[in-house]
């Protein structure tokens, strides 16, 4: 059996054990987390909109996404979106224009937001939609990835992702193109 063969070879060939290092936190070098988050996410192709309440988000969506098929898992916005997509075959999401999902928290150093299957509704949702909107409370921005994993802790999820901006590629001569396979645009709503 290859399993035993591999494990035996590892046991035979591995070096003497060295301890794991302490994982330092390295503190917070950013004076304004929301501003740091905004500036990073903007430079990697995302958009950041600060809003006071759900009404503002609605208004934004109503002006920017007219005529799109919208899906969401957020109760406050459920009337804007289609129902019953949660149980449908993920392939049927192919024509979704906008997915509006809650992010658990955001990371200032890299402009990413943590979203798990629970907020996604369907795993394909944030990837297959033409545009993605993530809503994160402004109080839920952590400085760095070390803080992010401290927040996640030993949470149990089937799938989770840090998402930082729209899908993109620079495979053709290093020119940045948004919308490689996933969303062509991404907006982060920072809500009070």
């Amino acid at each position, binding site marked *: *059996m*290859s*399993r035993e*063969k*591999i*494990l035996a*070879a*590892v046991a035979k*060939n*591995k*070096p*003497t*054990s*060295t*301890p*794991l*290092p302490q*994982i*330092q936190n390295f503190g917070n070098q950013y004076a304004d987390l929301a501003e740091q988050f905004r500036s*990073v996410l903007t430079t*990697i192709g995302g958009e950041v909109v600060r809003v006071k309440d759900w009404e503002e988000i609605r208004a934004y969506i109503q002006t920017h996404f007219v005529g799109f098929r919208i899906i969401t898992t957020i109760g406050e916005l459920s009337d804007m979106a289609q129902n019953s997509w949660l149980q449908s075959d993920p*392939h049927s999401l*192919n024509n979704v224009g906008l997915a509006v999902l809650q992010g658990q928290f955001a990371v200032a*150093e*890299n*402009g*990413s937001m943590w979203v798990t*299957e629970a907020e996604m509704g*369907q*795993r*394909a949702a944030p*990837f*297959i939609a033409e545009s993605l909107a993530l809503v994160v409370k402004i109080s839920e921005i952590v400085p760095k*990835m*070390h803080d*992010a*994993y401290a927040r996640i802790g*030993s949470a149990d*999820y*089937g*799938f*989770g*992702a*840090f*998402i*930082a901006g*729209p*899908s*993109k*590629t*620079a*495979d*053709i*001569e*290093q*020119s940045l*193109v948004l919308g*490689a*396979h*996933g969303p062509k645009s991404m907006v982060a709503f920072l809500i009070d």
Partner: protein
Amino acid sequence: MTINHATAAEKFNKDFDRTTWHDETLWWVRQKRDRAAFSIPEWEKLRDTASQIKHNVLSNLDTYLVEFEKNAQKNGITVHWAADAHEHNEIILSILKKQGVTQIVKSKSMLTEECHLNPYLAENGVEVVDTDLGERIVQLADEPPSHIVLPCIHWKKEEIGVLFHKHLGTPEGCADPTLLTHAARENLREKFLTRRVAITGVNFAVAETGEFVVCTNEGNADMGAHLADVHIACMGIEKIIPQRVHLGVFLRLLARSATGQPITTYSSHFAKPRAGQEMHIVLVDNGRTTQLGREEFRNSLKCIRCGACMNTCPVYRRSGGHSYHNAVAGPIGSILAPNLDMTKNADLPFASTLCGSCSNVCPVKINIHEQLYEWRQVLTKSGHSPTAKTLGMKAMAAVLSNPSVYRLSGKMGRLALANVPFVVNNSLNPWYKQREMPEPPKESFGEWYKKNRG
């Protein structure tokens, strides 16, 4: 027959302007990496930490593998073990056969390149579509990737335009990156929607939780995995990390080192299959345990495949990835490849000036250039050097270890010495192709010293 690096590099360099372009494109990526690294004051400490974590992994790899397996199984993932490339390919084929599937999508996985999965599956009647844009481009061109992160960095947009016109029907003469990318998007979207099995690579697998993380910018791994009935993830056994918190260290380093981005667009954590889905993971050895046993070279297994060592390598930039005739090119490829096949890859550790820039950018602090030096010794001692070179070196050693012979050969004309230290082959001395030799002075320093201070 594989063409050796020097010959392939010479061919590459025939096109002067293209070499300039290739060099400058990659140097641009290196500069982006620098800006990203310099925005993190604790960068060097992060590299230290990452390197130490990886050392701990190597020293407990068997324990972590078993722990990962247990937790992944608990999560509902099927775990397979493959001793070599062939077994890896067979495992995948058997899963596909069980599903009755002959068409699949695959996102970037250097391991499947290393195992030559695509040709194997093609022989067995399975069509693989690579979905990473760069990989799709080289696949349409029937070439391997030339870079582990930027697979088609050697292609110009006009050439991609021609390729896409032929295969995807884009307008003739179209070389606009946005239009070309979106044409590929349309074409591949159809594949994502119709293929039932998706293969992805793995960037990190967490022993403690049984989850694995896949990083992409395009979202192609996710599009494949979340739409497919079966998700197969392939990983080298060295991709294990002990705990979830360690992802915090590696995800800070990976994209910054690779492309200068603060993080990839998607860092997807796959812990359990979605309802109704099958999820497989294939753990592959393929020479890794052998490398683990080579004391001087085992650190190469720390590699997180960021590609930074290639972008900074002045030789890689001026010879192109294909000149390394190995799935992983560049400095890291040159220390991994001889482990797989010393005869075929004996040239690679010599395709370097040992400048050391690679070791400095490496986020896990692999002593790449020192390993290149060590491989040279190992290859020479195990008889993988050309006889002429060995004879030349022996002659050189004889002159240099005997002061009077050395003085004499100096006197007999300084140029006679030109074939000693650096120029082994005197008859067709390549030095002169593009360079002059220094003018010989009237007297050597030794002679001057004797007259003036002796």
